[in-house]
């Protein structure tokens, strides 16, 4: 009975919570009022920390534009968030680092504001394929960083470094491999095509793709772990629990430098070269600042700094960089890389995903 008396209190609490909630929602508006700032989305964790420490502070000093870095999740979750927000006219980040597949998907909904290369003079430093374009030639994104996925091994278990991706198929490696769990981030179809069918052009037809799937299915008995989470594999690789697999060249290099018994090898067929682009959300009002930022990031000295501090491969031409041969080898290789067939992951996305899931879980 007396409980009814409490009604007023709880109603007031509801009102109070409502006001608090509303003011929380209004916060971004307050932030937006500030002049000369830019919200930049970069992958959270190690990446964001390195960028905050080594890059963004200097950028603010040089240009007077304050950078608020936003930790974005990997995978396509960030693309989904940007897309939903843009529909509502919001930009959780003005400029974001996006994967190639995400770039293509964003293009289909015109999510990326076209960039004006006249305002990005340093864009001419870039290797051609790092300029991401709409089908009609407008520039959708500019290569931010590149990285390699290579063949990694535990040095205690494998005294000799493997030389070819064909080690994945070797029956001697039964139950020893850790591979990425998704068709769109492992790029193993491309590896199969390059290793066994002469190049990624073999994946042009559905027939060729099925042949690659069939060949790749032979790897299954060797796979101990199909991982989505990097930490899971990295730990097992260091301990020798899972002594071989595909992993990121930069992180493996850092672990080896820390004295861990791991090594990263560029197989003779080439490492898998993946990259991220800077892209500007169409909902952003910071168009000028974004161009200044992208131009700044495309300088050879900044790309060299990223290679030294973050361990990424540069997106500008090799001869413009002051990296020593050793520094370059730590982040890249002269062996012709395997470039993923990003087009397949938009045109045949669901078909590939279905075949892939059936292959590994079947």
């Amino acid at each position, binding site marked *: 009975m007396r409980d009814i008396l409490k009604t007023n209190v709880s*109603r007031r609490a509801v009102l109070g919570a409502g006001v608090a909630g509303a003011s929380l929602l209004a916060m971004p508006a307050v932030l937006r009022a500030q002049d000369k700032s830019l919200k930049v989305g970069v992958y959270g964790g190690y990446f964001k920390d390195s960028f905050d420490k080594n890059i963004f502070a200097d950028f603010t000093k040089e240009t007077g534009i304050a950078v608020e870095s936003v930790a974005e999740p990997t995978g*396509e979750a960030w693309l*989904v968030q940007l897309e939903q927000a843009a529909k509502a006219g919001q930009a959780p980040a003005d400029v974001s680092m996006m994967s190639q597949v995400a770039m293509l998907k964003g293009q289909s909904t015109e999510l990326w504001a076209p960039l004006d290369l006249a305002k990005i003079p340093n864009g001419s430093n870039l290797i051609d394929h790092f300029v991401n374009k709409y089908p009609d030639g407008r520039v959708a994104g500019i290569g931010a960083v590149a990285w390699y996925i290579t063949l990694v091994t535990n040095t205690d278990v494998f005294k000799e470094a493997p030389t070819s991706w064909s080690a994945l198929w070797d029956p001697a490696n039964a139950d020893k491999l850790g591979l990425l769990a998704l068709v769109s*981030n492992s790029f193993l179809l491309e590896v199969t095509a390059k290793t066994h069918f002469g190049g990624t052009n073999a994946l042009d037809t559905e027939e060729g793709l099925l042949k690659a799937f069939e060949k790749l299915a032979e790897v299954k008995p060797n796979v101990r772990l199909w991982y989505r989470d990097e930490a899971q594999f990295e730990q097992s690789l260091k301990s020798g629990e899972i002594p071989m697999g595909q992993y990121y060249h930069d992180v493996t290099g850092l672990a080896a430098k820390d004295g861990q018994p791991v090594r990263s090898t560029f197989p003779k067929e080439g490492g898998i070269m993946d990259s991220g682009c800077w892209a500007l959300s169409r909902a952003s009002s910071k168009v000028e600042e974004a161009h200044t930022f992208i131009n700044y990031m495309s300088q050879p000295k900044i790309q060299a700094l990223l290679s030294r501090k973050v361990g990424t491969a540069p997106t500008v031409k090799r001869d413009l960089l002051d990296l020593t041969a050793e520094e370059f080898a730590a982040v890249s290789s002269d062996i012709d890389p395997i470039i993923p067939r990003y087009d397949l992951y938009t045109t045949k996305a669901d078909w590939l995903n279905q075949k892939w899931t059936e292959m590994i879980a079947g």
Partner: protein
Amino acid sequence: MRREAPQKLTDYGPLVFPAGMLITFFVVPFATMIAVSFFKRNPSGFYTPDFVFENYERFLSLFFGKVLGFSLFLAVTVAICCVVLAVPFTYLLSRAKRRTQVLWLVALLSILSLSEVIIGFAWSTLFSRTAGITNLLVMIGILDQPVALNPSFGAVLTAMTYQALPYTVLVLYPALVRLDPTLTEAARTLGASPIKSFFTVVVPALRNTIVATLIMVFIFALGCYLLPQILGRPQHWTLSVLITDQAIYQSNMPFAAAMAVFLVLVTLGLVGLTVYAGRKGEAA
């Protein structure tokens, strides 16, 4: 305190807040999910509002049928394991000294503070060849050399049971504490052994509680998606894992929503069936 039926409209006042929360945080999102499950997927982008059945059609295949079957089987197995372990344990606990009870309950509650990620990684270390429990077995001479116990079905089952056990105990505990001790005393004076009296008196008296607990653990286990990934092989991945893949990695929201709706419907169906069967059994 006396309970009275509400007389005036304002008597329903205290319900406004919970009802509002329920509508905002459950009804609306769930309705959105159902709506999205009928949207049209655009493989090169996102989705467009529409009313198509293709997401459900894609799900109706032998492959997804098997995955759904495995998920249900895994959840049922976890529920049974938890109840089989928790009923005797909680029974003994409820008969123990107050201090012992408090200690155990605090320990169990502290497991609840661990996230699924921590539980998954901890068990994957315990089951590993290089640092796992088999090294102990080698030390005491039971095994010749350490072996890896994961990835395997047993590893997934163990970790999921570990995760769900505290909930099971906490749900069973009040019922067991309230259980009239004279019931078992009567059984004992009539000559039943402690074990016999447990199975013929305690368990039947708790039938409804046990069924309710089974259902709760079953539903809890069905939503698990991290442990099968960390500790299992791809054939041990549950439907929840595939839903996550579609939603997060493929940005195929319509298909993910369709799978989730299907999973909810199957779950509700099974729970309904269990409750219905329980009522019938009681009536008979």
